[in-house]
């Protein structure tokens, strides 16, 4: 197979993905709530793709869509390819946990009746797995005694680190880390991220969903910025470190400005609710560059300066 020869071949490709939830109103009234629309992105082996963006912009939903973990009332359209092959439900079932591993966002995913060490090792009872678990715990600053603790005895940051271990000691080719660092001390967070970097160095692919943009960008290759259920920009991570001048979308620039180490400056308004998306560009209601054209049609992604952007004004 071609991807085996090419280190940088695409591992996961998502094309025009849309996800809608069917909601029931009064009586038999049905509503489709479109939570992800027209979303495309690619993760190559050897690469960390950071995903940043507004809370509630569909970042976790994307992760769940890739793994086939969406609830029953979700309607998914578009294309998802893993190593060039369509990811259908059967394939998702086979791959998740083995080829594709998830570090879930909520610490409630830990089994409350299972000790941390067993939990991290999972179903694999081999000595090799136990060895790996011990070394990962050590790197993440978890003492050997932690292995014996149950989730309720762990602090928020410790639970996060256990959760992190469960996914990275597998042999997965693609790791999806959904907000892995909140609650971790800065040194531990940096260690966790360098572990992800090493995985990528070994030819794996990593999706890193995070609000800690400044941390993530020191380790990521690319960044995808999400807003209201779609990507508004995909850029080399370096552009975000350079600052607003290198960025392409007004929302990405707003994110940069809001960081406490930059201007700590919010923008007015809200991300539109999935049930009430504006007809044109989804960011238009808050955009300083808004013109009539923006309100008519949501612009497609286009390539500019080595990245892609969904904005008619970007140059």
């Amino acid at each position, binding site marked *: 197979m071609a991807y085996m020869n090419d280190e940088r071949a695409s591992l996961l490709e998502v094309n025009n993905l849309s996800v809608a939830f069917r909601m029931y109103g009064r009586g038999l009234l049905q509503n489709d709530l479109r939570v992800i629309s027209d979303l495309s992105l690619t993760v190559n082996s050897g690469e960390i793709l950071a995903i940043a963006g507004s*809370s*509630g912009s569909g970042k976790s939903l994307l992760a769940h869509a890739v793994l086939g973990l969406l609830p029953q009332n979700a309607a998914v359209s578009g294309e998802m390819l893993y190593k060039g092959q369509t990811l259908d439900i059967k394939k998702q079932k086979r791959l998740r946990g083995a080829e594709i591993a998830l570090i879930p966002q909520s610490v409630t995913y830990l089994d409350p009746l299972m000790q941390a060490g067993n939990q991290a090792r999972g179903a694999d009872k081999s000595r090799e797995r136990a060895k790996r678990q011990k070394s990962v715990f050590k790197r993440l600053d978890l003492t050997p005694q932690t292995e014996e603790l149950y989730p309720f005895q762990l602090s928020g940051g410790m639970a996060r680190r256990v959760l992190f271990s469960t996914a990275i000691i597998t042999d997965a080719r693609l790791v999806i880390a959904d907000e892995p660092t909140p609650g971790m001390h800065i040194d531990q*967070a940096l260690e966790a991220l360098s572990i992800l970097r090493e995985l990528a160095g070994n030819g794996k692919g990593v999706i890193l969903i995070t*609000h800690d943009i400044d941390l993530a960008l020191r380790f990521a290759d690319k960044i995808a910025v999400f807003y209201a259920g779609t990507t508004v920009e995909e850029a080399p991570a370096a552009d975000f470190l350079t600052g607003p001048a290198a960025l392409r979308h007004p929302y990405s620039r707003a994110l940069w400005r809001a960081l*406490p*180490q930059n201007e700590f*400056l919010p923008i007015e308004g809200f991300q539109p*609710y999935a049930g009430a998306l504006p007809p044109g560009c989804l960011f238009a209601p808050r955009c300083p560059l808004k013109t009539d054209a923006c309100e008519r049609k949501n612009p497609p992604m286009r390539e500019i300066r080595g990245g892609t952007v969904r904005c008619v004004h970007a140059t």
Partner: protein
Amino acid sequence: MRLEANDIGFRYTAKSPYVLQALSFAVEQGERVGVVAPSGYGKTTFVKILSGYEQPTQGRVLLDGKPLPKKGALPVQLISQHPEHAVNPRWKMHRVLEEAGQLNEAVLSGMGIEREWLSRYPRELSGGELQRFCVARALFAGTRFLIADEMSTMLDVITQAQIWRYVLREADKRGIGLLVVTHNPALTKRVCARVVDLRNINGIKKVV
């Protein structure tokens, strides 16, 4: 006015080891103090004790020289990292604000709360939207000290800046003392005038 912990100690049961011991600490009215320490060093336990959610095993917490009042809304308010655990799931959002006497135009526009959200249940709001309600509620008229425990880690940076700007403005205006637990050094630098490392004031130096 001053909020202080006098020589407090804490353990979960009579058999378990101490998490906090011989810890004394004070924050003055209008002060902005950051509390830092690696995860698992008792930051959350410490602020829960300060805000009356946990009783210390030893020592006392004093507000203006007196123990925390047992009745009524506490002048020391805690904002937790998990807003979804902090609101009544069966109440619509307007009741959450009404309970605190915070349902007015100034609060709504200041916190960026849309009128339409008021008729929704907590589960119909995102974490960022919900946290705005928790912050608004915690800033009710009687608040003298506000404790933010990782208040904004789960929020996108724009929402984070929005909420912090409002909190800092209100705290300045009303002389509210702020205690900020965060792992983000840039945020600490931005909002705190003084930073306390819990490891330096806690008698327990090593935790599991």
